[in-house]
């Protein structure tokens, strides 16, 4: 199946129906294994048992940024190629990305209290993540404010691409400024600094959360296509009733 064929919403619906049970099953399996590994992981010599928060905090933080990256690619698809599914993909990813960002902020705060002595600090990493969360909320509001999906899509695509500037700021904030947040310990040029006892559960959870995003995104895209089909049929019925 080529990408052009997949761009057909009807074909996407058919594929989604076949894929979703497998994706949901793989997600449940990986998250279960990840949770067991996370619970069996030893305490950190400095952070004690709070290191277990890392196994939910880090995947949520990664996905918070990854989802905006997906939305940026979809926005290019909307503005440059006018791909039929691009704005559907961007619109439906936003609430999921907002949820991951909220969880990254909340679990980070719950980790910060016992380790830093505070739930919140206006430092570069935390503030740039909060800005990402507010941008997600802004995009969701924009989609809801404009009734015509194609007009909303173009405005949202521009806002998404402008907002993508925040992604490198979040990533490198811990290197560019003095922050309470620790520097990168997994995605580093010199390789992960984490011990295998922590790295394995973290990677399993990260893949599990990524699959969770994929499953939710495909399901939400299917819903959005159906919502647009409802809208089209309602408009056709209305114009037919007007003509009669």
């Amino acid at each position, binding site marked *: 199946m080529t990408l052009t064929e997949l761009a057909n919403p009807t074909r996407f*619906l*058919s594929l989604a*129906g076949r894929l979703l049970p497998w994706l949901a099953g793989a997600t449940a399996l990986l998250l279960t294994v990840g949770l067991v590994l996370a619970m069996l992981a030893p305490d950190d010599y400095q952070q*004690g*048992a*709070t290191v*277990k*928060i890392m196994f*939910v*905090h880090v995947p*949520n933080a990664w996905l918070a940024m990854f989802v905006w990256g997906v939305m940026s690619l979809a926005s290019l698809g909307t503005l440059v190629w006018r791909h039929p599914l691009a704005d559907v993909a961007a619109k439906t990813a936003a*609430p*999921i990305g907002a*949820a991951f960002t*909220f*969880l990254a902020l*909340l*679990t980070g705060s*719950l*980790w910060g*209290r*016992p380790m830093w002595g505070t739930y919140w600090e206006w430092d570069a990493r935390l503030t740039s993540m909060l800005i990402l969360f507010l941008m997600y909320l802004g995009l969701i509001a924009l989609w809801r404010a404009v009734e015509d999906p194609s007009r909303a899509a173009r405005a949202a695509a521009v806002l998404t691409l402008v907002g993508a500037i925040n992604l490198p700021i979040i990533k490198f904030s811990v290197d560019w400024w003095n922050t309470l947040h620790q520097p990168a310990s997994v995605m580093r040029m010199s390789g992960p600094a984490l011990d295998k006892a922590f790295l394995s559960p973290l990677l399993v959870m990260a893949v599990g959360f990524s699959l*969770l995003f994929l499953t*939710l995104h495909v*399901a*939400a895209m*299917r*819903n959005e296509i*159906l*919502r647009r*089909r*409802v809208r089209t*049929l*309602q408009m*056709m*019925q209305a114009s037919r009733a007007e003509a009669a």
Partner: protein
Amino acid sequence: MFGRYAEFIVSSYAATAIVVVLLILWVVIDYRRQKARLRDLEARGAVRRSGRSATDLS
């Protein structure tokens, strides 16, 4: 099990579980709602341009 940090660890996992369940409920309930709206439109005689059933997902 988690010593003196239990409240922070349990709260983190519980909040994550609640949000994930809410996301799952959101897509499942929305899917059922859209399917019901399509069935209702079909019952009132709405037909797609292709002539295929409104609820046909294949």
